[in-house]
């Protein structure tokens, strides 16, 4: 079954990406995690996302396009990236999700992909 691991990071996580003292640990952890997924042969795809302020939200209402600066919702944790994995069941997906660095600081959601 294919699952998507949604990586929700807090403000500190996002700032760790560029902070001189913390960025090495941050990127090192994600490199290692991604490598582990690849080595296990479960990784299907994924992407890291630029921080929420770079996001732009669009809604189409009454034939008009409404464009808003920033992410869809202001929450403490924001989507920072995602992984697509292919594993036998939810329990295995949860095992992988709990190893994601953001699981220790922010939150990680696991959702089965729709079969299309």
């Amino acid at each position, binding site marked *: 079954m294919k*699952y998507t691991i949604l990586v929700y990071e807090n403000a500190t996580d996002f700032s760790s990406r560029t902070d001189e003292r913390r960025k090495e640990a941050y990127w090192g952890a994600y490199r290692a995690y991604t490598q582990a997924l690849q080595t296990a042969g479960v990784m299907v795809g994924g992407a890291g996302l630029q921080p929420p302020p770079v996001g732009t939200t669009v809604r189409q209402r009454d034939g008009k396009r409404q464009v808003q600066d920033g992410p869809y919702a202001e929450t403490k944790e924001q989507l920072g990236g995602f992984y697509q994995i292919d594993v*036998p*069941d*939810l*329990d*295995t*997906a949860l095992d992988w999700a709990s190893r994601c660095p953001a699981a220790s600081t922010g939150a990680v959601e696991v959702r*089965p992909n729709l*079969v299309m």
Partner: protein
Amino acid sequence: MNTGDPHDAHRAAELAARASYGRLVAYLARRSRDVAAAEDALSDAFVAALAAWPRDGVPDKPEAWLLAVARRRLLDAGRHATVAARALPALHAVIDEADGAAARELAFPDERLALLFVCAHPAIDEGMRTPLMLQTVLGLDAARIAAAFVVPAATMGQRLVRVKTKIRDAGIRFEVPDPRELPARLEPVLEAIYAAYGSGWEDVAGAEARRAGLADEAIWLGRLVTRLLPNEPEGQGLLALMLHCEARRPARRDVTGGYVPLSRQAVARWNWPMIEEAERTLLVAAHAGLPGRFQLEAAIQSAHAQRGRTGRTDWDAIALLYEGLVRIAPTVGASVGQAAALAEARGAGAGLAALDAMPPAAIASYQPYWALRAHLLAMIGRADEAARAYTRAIGLSEDEAVRTFLAGKEGAR
């Protein structure tokens, strides 16, 4: 084949249902990974049995007969309904395996343990674990479960459908967790069983018809877990705890239906064979040398049961057991129990001091706290405070008999 007496056929279908419902569901669900589909197929099989058995006689192997019909229904459902293409190989696997099992005339494997772990999976909403277990393992209908949890039958039915959809769509694993994970995963299984017992315990002797108790069902599940996991002392601890509580049920009410607190219960009205079984079960658990929450709670009940033999209650021992319980499983109930034991062992002042130390938010709506507080305040003559505490306890009581009991104590001061 037996002779086709319709009454026998109904009885046989009923017995087969009770004894093997959970086994059949577990077997079918594990292979199809779809609890709802397994249950639907099985209920069709039971309907078919009620039609065929009175006519043709009860088959020699009723379970195999039901399994054969159910797996055929499961395949039909897979063909006709909008089942995702990926489910079909799984369905074929069910058919092949069930055919093999039937052909070899072997009993099919008991996979209810895996089903119990699915029902109490951490990905399942906590409030739905017990209802799910009662339905899939015991075959209870939604209306009966709804009555025990005091929600409308339709609401319970919808919630059960939703949670089974999640099991299928999220792809929860149908397996007994490996030994490393087992203790952590067993805890919610035991909690869910205990919650079923609690739903029955509140309703002493059917005081409220709409809260039909599930104590028997919970004990049945407890026995099942101890049989399937004989080396898990917490499972035995839970069973011992439930048996101890159940053994005292007849003594919780006097002849007029009035509430009788534990310390006043007539020990002759306790169910002694059940207490013996509880003691044996707890002894087996103790051999493992791995104490846990349920074993401690059972040990507390065991200490209370000693009064039936010695005529006195060892409150020091009970206070010590509660201390251990509060340390490993801090709950409001355990803290109030500890305070009660301290009051008995060292006087009302010690009990009150323990109650005073509890956080106000935790006890604001907790009836046993206020009942105990009222009792202890009355003992040391703080009448006004006692009256206020009694009023609070009465206002928080769910049980008419308990309200009457507390009002009587308040009036008798």
